[in-house]
């Protein structure tokens, strides 16, 4: 464009319009159709410099019209009669206000000033947390919620949350088994700070190996999770964040005891070494020496136990340079003894003197996390994590032996950034996993190594108001599962205030560790049989399933108090599953799915602040879980179709010293549960077809004296409800009908406990 400035003044009588249109075609490069003010802004100390001041603000006072000077210092700004004051400003210069009477050309010189009226420094203090409206159906359990059920480890942390159902895995160990959407924990991806944790050899007891006090928060994702942590999650993900050396108390001590002779002790010591480094040592011990057999069946109702669990964490943080790092080392030794109360391992092991079992576990794990946030680009980061674990379990159940040694390596690299702006983000990277298993099942030795390498890409979009979505895809190559693609999609739509409609679908795959996951069957006289031989994992094929679901969340207020209501429906449909069939009381078989297998779950949850400081959480759940067994399509055994849940929490206001009372009450009602078929047993060992519905109640009182000290006391199973005869053929444990796996209700009655927490910051 030529350098001369066109200062054509245009008036607006109607007769001129035609000429204008003509001009428009003749002089397409000139601007004329709009009145405007043009000009140039120069710097005062170099007025002769023709290169003007770039980036100066030029705007009409009290208007919405403004512009910025270009690299030559030139600008053009529309003119209207209502505007008369033109302001020219620039950082480091005095602002000037010019009076303009009409369109034209101006040259203005700005005077430097010592005052900085606009400081271009991004503030240092913490930003207010952006409201995170996740596309995934995530329930966050914070530390306050975790304290509602004070005992004792991760497996017991879900009692006050309706998203997870807690069941009993067997009549001996009392181990709690968790279920989500009607599927047991192997179908959940359980991670610790986003590193897969409870899997392989630790599938059955792994949750009991994370002490409750180590847990900072838990995130439960219903339905297909993110693709970042792998392809294994089918019905959901549970991630646990542990306490961090930098934020945890300098000293924390917790002691716990219950009436059944269980004692627990936790101690945390955290030190900030310098500006960047902190470290924490976390020690947990628990034991039970007292033999309890309240139901007089000759068997211990709860195991004799002894656990030492030590974790050391190192945290590095350099916020200026953008580096964050964690390094963890953990060692665990856990010993359990179960069986007949007169069983003495030294003399009775592998004899028919009496029936007993010992389960000894040693675990070592270590992990490293490195994160780098680009200091100039808060939306861009790189993360690397690597972990190694060695899990060794040696055990016997009567005459059945089961040993497993599992070594695992997991590593991933994630790059986070944006496309255009932060409304569209992506995460991409690689995972590598190695698992080496050595198992001894009675006299049979199994050895297996699994290796996989995968790449993932996850895209997310957020319009910041109504719609957000996360779409992920991963491609993996696995020496046993083959090459496969895992898609996952999450959508969130908020059509009106305080609402959220979510939908998700995704695929998951896994190699079932049939013995480790079904250890409870070793404590029975059932014969183990694997019916397929052609597959790559114990002769069986990999499990493969699709999950999809919808949920609707709506917030409301009644009488100035807020609440919300959630309805969700999920369906998991198996393409292949390792069917664990125990419908014949004398055996347990593992086979590839022949037919269909699905889990439908429906949940209605209401949360409401009933009265000031009194919170109600209630849920109704319906499960329809059916699988084609050898004997046809049946409801999954020991799965209640209907469940009802109520939790009431009341807290007094904190007084000046930070003291308060907290009360908590939980009710679980389970509808009838189908029991595995025992029709072919002799009369005395035959169970009914269904277990009767029942309810369980827990209650707890916490007295917070100050930020330093609190005491708590509570009771689990308030109404003392127990299953009569939880062990089939308890009088003849070496006979053909002995079975400890059909457990649908607590074995132990009311359990009173008390404890304290002491904290120094």
């Amino acid at each position: 464009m030529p350098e001369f400035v066109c200062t054509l003044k245009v008036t607006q009588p109607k007769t001129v319009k035609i000429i204008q249109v003509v001009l428009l075609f003749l002089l397409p490069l000139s601007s004329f159709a709009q009145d405007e003010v043009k000009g140039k802004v120069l710097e005062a100390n170099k007025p002769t410099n023709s290169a003007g001041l770039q980036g100066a603000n030029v705007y009409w006072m009290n208007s919405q019209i403004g512009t910025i000077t270009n690299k030559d210092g030139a600008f053009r700004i529309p003119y209207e009669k209502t505007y008369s004051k033109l302001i020219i400003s620039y950082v480091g210069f005095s602002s000037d206000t010019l009076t303009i009477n009409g369109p034209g050309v101006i040259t203005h010189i700005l005077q430097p000033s010592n005052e900085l009226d606009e400081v271009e420094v991004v503030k240092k203090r913490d930003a207010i947390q952006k409201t995170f409206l996740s596309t995934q159906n995530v329930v966050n359990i914070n530390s306050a919620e975790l304290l509602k059920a004070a005992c004792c480890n991760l497996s017991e942390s879900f009692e006050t949350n309706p998203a997870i159902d807690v069941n009993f895995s067997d009549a001996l160990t009392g181990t709690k088994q968790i279920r989500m959407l009607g599927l047991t924990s192997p179908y959940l991806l359980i991670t610790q700070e986003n590193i897969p944790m409870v899997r392989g050899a630790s599938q059955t007891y792994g949750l009991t190996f994370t002490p409750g006090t180590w847990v900072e928060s838990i995130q439960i994702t219903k339905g297909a999770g993110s693709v970042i942590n792998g392809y294994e999650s089918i019905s959901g993900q549970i991630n646990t964040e542990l306490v961090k050396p930098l934020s945890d108390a300098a000293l924390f001590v917790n002691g716990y005891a219950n009436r059944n002779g269980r004692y627990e002790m936790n101690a945390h010591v955290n030190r900030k070494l310098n500006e960047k480094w902190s470290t924490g040592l976390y020690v947990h011990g628990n034991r039970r020496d007292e033999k309890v057999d309240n139901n007089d069946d000759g068997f211990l109702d709860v195991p004799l136990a002894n656990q030492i669990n030590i974790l050391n964490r190192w945290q590095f943080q350099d916020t200026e340079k953008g580096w964050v790092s964690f390094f963890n080392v953990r060692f665990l030794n856990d010993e359990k003894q179960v069986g007949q109360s007169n069983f003495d391992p030294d003399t009775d092991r592998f004899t028919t003197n009496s029936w007993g079992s010992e389960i000894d576990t040693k675990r070592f794990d270590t992990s490293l996390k490195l994160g780098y946030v680009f200091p100039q680009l808060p939306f861009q980061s790189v993360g690397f994590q690597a972990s190694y674990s060695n899990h060794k379990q040696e055990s016997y159940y009567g005459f059945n032996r089961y040993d497993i040694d599992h070594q695992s390596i997991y590593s991933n690299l994630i790059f986070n950034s944006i496309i255009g702006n932060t409304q569209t983000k992506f995460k991409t990277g690689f995972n590598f996993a190695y698992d080496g298993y050595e198992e001894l099942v009675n006299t049979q030795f199994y050895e297996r190594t699994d290796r996989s390498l995968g790449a993932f890409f996850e895209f997310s979009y957020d319009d910041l108001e109504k719609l957000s979505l996360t779409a992920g895809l991963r491609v993996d190559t696995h020496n046993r599962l083959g090459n496969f693609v895992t898609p996952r999609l999450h959508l969130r739509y908020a059509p009106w205030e305080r609402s959220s409609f979510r939908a998700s679908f995704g695929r998951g795959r896994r190699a079932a560790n049939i013995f480790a996951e079904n250890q409870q069957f070793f404590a029975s006289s059932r014969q183990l049989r694997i019916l397929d031989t052609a597959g790559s994992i114990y002769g069986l094929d990999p499990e493969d399933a699709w999950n999809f679901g919808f949920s609707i969340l709506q917030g409301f207020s009644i009488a100035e108090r807020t609440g919300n209501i959630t309805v969700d429906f999920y369906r998991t449909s198996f393409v292949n599953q390792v069917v664990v069939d125990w419908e014949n009381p004398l055996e347990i078989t593992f086979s590839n799915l022949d037919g269909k297998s699905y889990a439908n779950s429906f949940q209605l949850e209401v949360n409401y602040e009933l009265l000031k400081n009194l919170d109600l959480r209630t849920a109704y759940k319906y499960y329809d879980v059916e699988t084609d067994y050898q004997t046809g399509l049946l409801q999954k055994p020991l799965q209640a179709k209907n469940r009802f849940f109520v939790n009431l929490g009341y807290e007094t206001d904190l007084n000046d010293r930070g003291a308060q009372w907290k009360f908590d009450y939980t009710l679980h009602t389970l509808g009838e549960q189908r029991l595995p078929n025992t029709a072919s047993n002799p009369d005395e060992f035959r169970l009914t077809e269904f277990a009767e519905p029942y309810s369980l109640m827990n209650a707890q009182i916490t007295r917070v004296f100050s930020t330093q000290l609190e005491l708590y006391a509570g009771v689990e199973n308030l109404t003392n409800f127990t299953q009569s005869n939880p062990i089939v053929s308890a009088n003849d444990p070496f006979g053909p009908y002995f079975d400890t796996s059909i457990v649908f209700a607590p074995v132990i009655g009311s359990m009173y406990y008390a404890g304290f927490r002491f904290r120094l910051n």
Partner: protein
Amino acid sequence: MKKFFLGIMLVGICVLGNAQEKNKKVTFEVDGICEMCKIRIEKAALGVTGVKYALWDIPSHKLSLIIDERKTNTMQIKTALVAVGHDTKELKASKEAYDKVDACCKYRDSTVVEKHH
């Protein structure tokens, strides 16, 4: 040859001196009150091509941005902000635009502002 490199370097310096940064941090004040304002302000800022990151801090009213200076400038962003009804130091929203913000966001009304404190 030496002169050639010198020339290249000089050109380089000129380019640097005049560089329009790809990831320029900019902060300025935008009037507003609440969480809803925050969403509206950030959304309007991100709606401008070249704005990569926007964070409006409720207590300080400071809008922190990362922008591609080759594609946009602060006045363009401020124009987008006044268009959705939020005043900046330089540009002020028109009455029509201001009237459209929700009742809780009427930052020019001192009684509404006080309610939030």
